[in-house]
């Protein structure tokens, strides 16, 4: 009997059920996931991801370039709806001027942002590198952006990133020429923060719905709507005194230890091609000293508003002490102090 008509031929003609590759690839997938979760930030899989990010970055740039005209169109549409009265006045005065404004709005916004960034850099004496946002996260579950600078430009993991309004996030992954920035609105983000007026300490935490909450602020603190929230510098990652947002609501539940404080981010959002500053190193004045950390832990509720307003402004201007004299810190405050110090380390 010819071999082709034998039993082996029947086996060859049977369509593959894919069971063998399925099992093998499932095992590889599980191993990949396990190794990824167990390895540190500099493991092999992170390295491979960095390589892939570097290789694919030209495609990302191309995508960003293709999408940017649509962003500009969106901005123009936004301007038309947002400031209809202003546009009507302008149209009445000079229709040609209105058209010009629409055409140049994007360039004007870029120039303004750059000026503000320069202002931010000089105001806070930041050691920084300018970068540009080239796209958002590829998945819907995280709030991150990609910037066009990487290890080749001296960037590394954990460096804070600011735009003209204030802090926008922190680098979580970096490749040769790109970096991924986790925004402060991401629910995995936590920033050591304080109320500028009273120096009340807390952790600014992103929420699943994209809002911000200042957590672990004890109910004996003085916090009001409209208060400005700034970085406290306790975690050693963010320079102190950089704006994070404004308190939009303060609620206190019965028998609650902490306030529920909702914060409106200083930055209204990130957009494609927006310029940002990556803070590459902190000076001694920009980080909280051991005494300041101890003071903040001892008095996390901060000081009274009237007493602190002057010293608060002085602190802000010269980047000095993070906490004033303050009132007594009881057991509750001590517990809170531990929490803040701990969370600040994980910033």
């Amino acid at each position, binding site marked *: 009997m010819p071999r082709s008509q034998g039993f082996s031929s*029947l086996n060859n003609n049977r369509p593959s059920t894919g069971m063998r590759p*399925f099992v093998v690839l499932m095992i590889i*997938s599980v191993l990949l996931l396990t190794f990824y979760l167990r390895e540190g930030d500099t493991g092999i899989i992170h390295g*491979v991801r960095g390589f892939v990010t570097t290789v694919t970055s030209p495609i990302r740039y191309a995508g960003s370039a293709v999408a940017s005209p649509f962003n500009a169109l969106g901005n123009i549409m936004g301007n038309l709806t947002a400031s209809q009265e202003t546009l009507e006045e302008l149209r009445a005065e000079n229709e040609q001027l209105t058209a010009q404004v629409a055409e140049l709005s994007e360039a004007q916004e870029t120039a303004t942002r750059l000026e503000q960034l320069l202002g931010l850099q000089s105001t806070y004496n930041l050691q920084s590198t300018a970068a540009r946002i080239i796209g958002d996260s590829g998945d819907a579950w995280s709030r991150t952006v990609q910037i066009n600078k990487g290890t080749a430009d001296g960037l590394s993991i954990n460096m804070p990133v600011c735009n003209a309004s204030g802090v926008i996030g922190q680098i979580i*992954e970096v490749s040769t020429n790109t970096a991924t920035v986790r925004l402060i609105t991401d629910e995995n983000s936590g920033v050591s923060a304080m109320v500028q007026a009273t120096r009340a300490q807390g952790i600014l935490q992103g929420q*699943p719905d994209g809002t911000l909450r200042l957590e672990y602020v004890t109910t004996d603190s003085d916090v009001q709507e409209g208060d400005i929230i700034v970085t406290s510098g306790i975690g050693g990652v963010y320079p102190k005194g950089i704006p994070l947002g404004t308190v939009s609501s303060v609620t206190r539940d019965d028998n609650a230890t902490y306030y529920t404080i909702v914060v409106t981010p200083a930055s209204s959002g990130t957009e*494609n091609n927006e310029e940002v500053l990556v803070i590459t190193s902190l000076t001694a004045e920009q980080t909280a000293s051991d005494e300041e950390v101890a003071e903040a832990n001892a008095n996390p509720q901060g000081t009274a508003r009237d007493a602190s307003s002057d010293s608060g402004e002085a602190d802000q201007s010269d980047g000095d002490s993070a906490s004033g004299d303050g009132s007594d810190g009881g057991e509750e405050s001590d517990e809170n102090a531990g929490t803040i110090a701990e969370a600040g380390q994980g910033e």
Partner: protein
Amino acid sequence: MEYRDTAHSQRALAILIAVAAVLQVALAPQISILGGRINFMIILAGVVALMGNASQAVYVGFGAGLLYDLTSPVPVGLMTLILTAGSFLLVQMASAGTSGFSSTSLRFMGIFSVGVCMLNGIALFFMGSERDLLLSLGGHGLMSAVLTTVVSIPFLMLSGSMASSRSGFSAHGYGTRFKSASRGRGRRLR
């Protein structure tokens, strides 16, 4: 003839993979609607699985998931695992005839997208990446699934044209994958 046909379908598959990969890297990060994002890797895995070749579907599902994991800030291996399993299940559920754009293939693609996005959302929640399960599933997951299903239509059409050109050139016809087995059995009986 079959040789030429195989080469043609392989080339078409390679083009499909390349297009989906480029779109995933270049376009997916730029578009976000109501908290959802288009996942071109789900589309690629789904379209290939609907073609009916189980081994090919599993390999492409694995590769697509890996590319997604490596180009997005997500745990590496998670989408790889989900798409590998999902492709295998889809190819078992759908017969080879579901390739191309039809109500049946769109339904399968919808189920596949929703399943993958929901599983991903649940996994991210239990891994601690997401804190709100409802938002993770209802907001990001469902919206991403809807967007992905809608955008999959041109890909299904493309796969349909691939399948029709393939059957046009074929000497045997590729009606279903069970045909070749019965043909082999018949030969044995003779």
